[in-house]
């Protein structure tokens, strides 16, 4: 009845489970209170407050409070913007592209990854908006009938394409995420004890009941949203890379940028998903649903995309040399060996060298290695954007205008504050929303859970007099103990 899966495949749901237990364990985190959660919320909430404070400071005193100068007019702000947008990409990749490829491991992590996407895009969007300086005029970026002619926005500009790309990306991700949440909110509602809790979750669930017709439309909707989001997610980072690639700045003006940015985005996004999921699975005791198998699958994607990024770095250097174009060569010489050599070194070691550990299975399946490397990759990817943006601008066409970028306290506080905002939103999500897509996990239960595999093995064992393979894989062991 359901799709076939080899029983030799590692299960995606461990432990002895049934639908009741799955509901209990996945709704559980929304029904308890955690002291540690409050502590974290207070810490990150303060950082989010710092974010608001520093943005207000910027608006009040002007962009002059940032470390920008006449030569380096894009620095930490745009670095942060690209970094956050990149992080967001893993969520859509997991929910959309892995859905189209029918990768069942997505069900354990897609909900949290999509939430991460939305929060990361919120953080990302802040930076270009506040970089405008006069934020109250931010609506000028939209093509609306105005009294200036009407003088329209320039549809030739990649910066305008970015406005459309990112706002579309945000709203489509939100729809995708929320349409998946409705059935799970209904599950919480139907278990709720209190009257208000029931009412609130009913509102959140939009009155979902789970009739066959609803599910039929649900499946159709998620398939098509996945089909739409797949080219969308690729287009968003492509357009972000156009912001640079269509300029005439040596170091930015390269055709390799779109695929290179997309690979980098997926790379950093998966790293962030791992950082968060490793903590979530531990705190909420979800080890049976976010298994080492899930972590290993993500690590495989990290080593793939990390190597694509590495090839892109080296290709850039090669093409700069091969082009015979002096200014391009100078820009890349500066990038690797100039005054920002330390940033280039950080980028190369964190992004290209460190993920190579994942060629080895013990490293891919080690949670401490994974956690450490996921942080390294996040640091490395921040430096990648810094390297691309700042080193290309710092030593420009006139020697007299060469400059060095020094962040001010506002730059630093805004960056830290954006992490605070992101984490605050994520913590709220963890506490009140189902962190794992309950209905989706149930839908793979018969194919991919340890329980179902053990049941099938028992049937096989009875008919063929023992099935050695599964006992060697340790799948039957758990069952035997119980």
């Amino acid at each position, binding site marked *: 009845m359901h799709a076939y899966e080899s029983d030799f495949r590692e299960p995606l749901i461990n432990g002895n489970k049934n639908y009741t237990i799955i509901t209990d364990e996945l709704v559980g985190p929304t029904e308890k209170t955690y002291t540690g959660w409050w502590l974290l919320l207070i810490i990150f909430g303060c950082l989010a407050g710092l974010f608001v404070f520093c943005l207000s400071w910027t608006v009040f005193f002007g962009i002059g409070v940032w470390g920008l100068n006449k030569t380096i007019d894009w620095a930490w702000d745009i670095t942060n913007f690209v970094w956050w947008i990149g992080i967001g990409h893993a969520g859509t990749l997991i929910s959309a592209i892995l859905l189209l490829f029918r990768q069942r491991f997505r069900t354990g992590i897609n909900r949290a990854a999509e939430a991460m996407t939305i929060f990361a895009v919120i953080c990302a969007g802040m930076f270009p908006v506040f970089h405008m300086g006069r934020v109250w005029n931010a609506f000028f970026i939209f093509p609306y009938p105005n009294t200036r002619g009407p003088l329209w926005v320039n549809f030739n500009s990649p910066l305008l394409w970015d406005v459309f*790309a990112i706002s579309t990306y945000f709203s489509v991700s939100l729809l995708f995420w929320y349409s998946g949440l409705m059935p799970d909110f209904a599950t919480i509602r139907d278990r709720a004890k209190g009257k208000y809790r029931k009412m609130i979750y009913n509102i959140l669930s939009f009155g979902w*009941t789970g009739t*066959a017709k*609803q599910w039929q439309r649900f499946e159709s*909707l998620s398939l*098509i*949203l996945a089909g739409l989001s797949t080219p969308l997610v690729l*287009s968003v980072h492509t357009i972000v890379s156009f912001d640079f690639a269509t300029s005439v700045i040596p170091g930015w003006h390269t055709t390799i940028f779109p695929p290179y940015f997309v690979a980098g985005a997926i790379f950093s996004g998966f790293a962030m998903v791992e950082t968060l999921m490793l903590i979530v699975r531990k705190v909420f005791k979800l080890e049976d649903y976010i298994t080492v198998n899930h972590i290993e699958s993500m690590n495989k994607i990290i080593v793939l995309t990390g190597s694509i990024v590495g090839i892109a770095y080296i290709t850039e250097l090669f093409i700069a040399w091969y082009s015979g174009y002096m200014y391009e060569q100078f820009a890349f010489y500066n990038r690797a060996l100039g005054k920002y050599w330390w940033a280039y070194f950080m980028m190369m070691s964190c992004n290209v060298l460190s993920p190579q550990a994942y060629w080895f299975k013990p490293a891919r399946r080690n949670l401490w290695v994974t956690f450490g490397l996921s942080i390294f990759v996040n640091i490395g990817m921040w430096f990648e954007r810094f390297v691309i943006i700042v080193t290309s601008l710092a030593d420009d066409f006139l020697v007299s205008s060469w400059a060095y970028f020094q962040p001010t306290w506002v730059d630093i506080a805004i960056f830290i504050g954006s992490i605070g905002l992101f984490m605050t939103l994520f913590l709220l999500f963890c506490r009140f929303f189902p962190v794992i897509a309950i209905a989706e996990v149930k839908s793979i239960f018969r194919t991919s859970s340890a329980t179902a595999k053990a049941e099938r093995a028992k049937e096989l064992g009875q008919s063929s007099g023992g099935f050695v393979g599964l006992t060697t894989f340790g799948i039957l062991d758990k069952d035997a103990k119980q």
Partner: protein
Amino acid sequence: MGAVKQSNNFVLGLWDHEEVFLHAIEHIRHDGLEIYETLTPFPVHGLEEALGYRQTRLHTAGFLFGATGTTLALSFMTWVMAFNYPLNFGGKPYWPLPSFIPITFELTVLFSAWGMVLTYCVRNKLIPGYVPRIYEPRTTDDRFALVFDIEGKSSEEIEKIKSLCNGNGAVEVKNRTFKDGE
């Protein structure tokens, strides 16, 4: 469902395994019983076929919304750049079609996604604040349910429904009555 007076009396059959449930549906439909509603905690493959539902046309709606977005984006940008306020941007043509592609694509996706989700909500009666009839709270947890309308049915017919459910592996069969307006 129309504005006809809603029925208040139902028989509920509950199953705990989707394969048994699917077989039960086949048998029950084979015996000519009408299933009023089917509730499951997650999408069960093969359920629409077993119930004889026709394909949803949601994807057609998605295509039409998407096509609206494409047309709107292309025609609006053409009107702005070539007719309403033609400006010379670095000697580029007044109708720079390649420049229109990214925004056209984004608006296609935007219209298609929003249009489809709104259609989905309307067709599925998903409105924030709408209080649905909950036949059995466990259908969003671990039970697969068939709901039979027994309004005006004789006790023999009701017995037949119940025995068919029981005979096809239901773990529980019970009556469910609603008050008016519930």
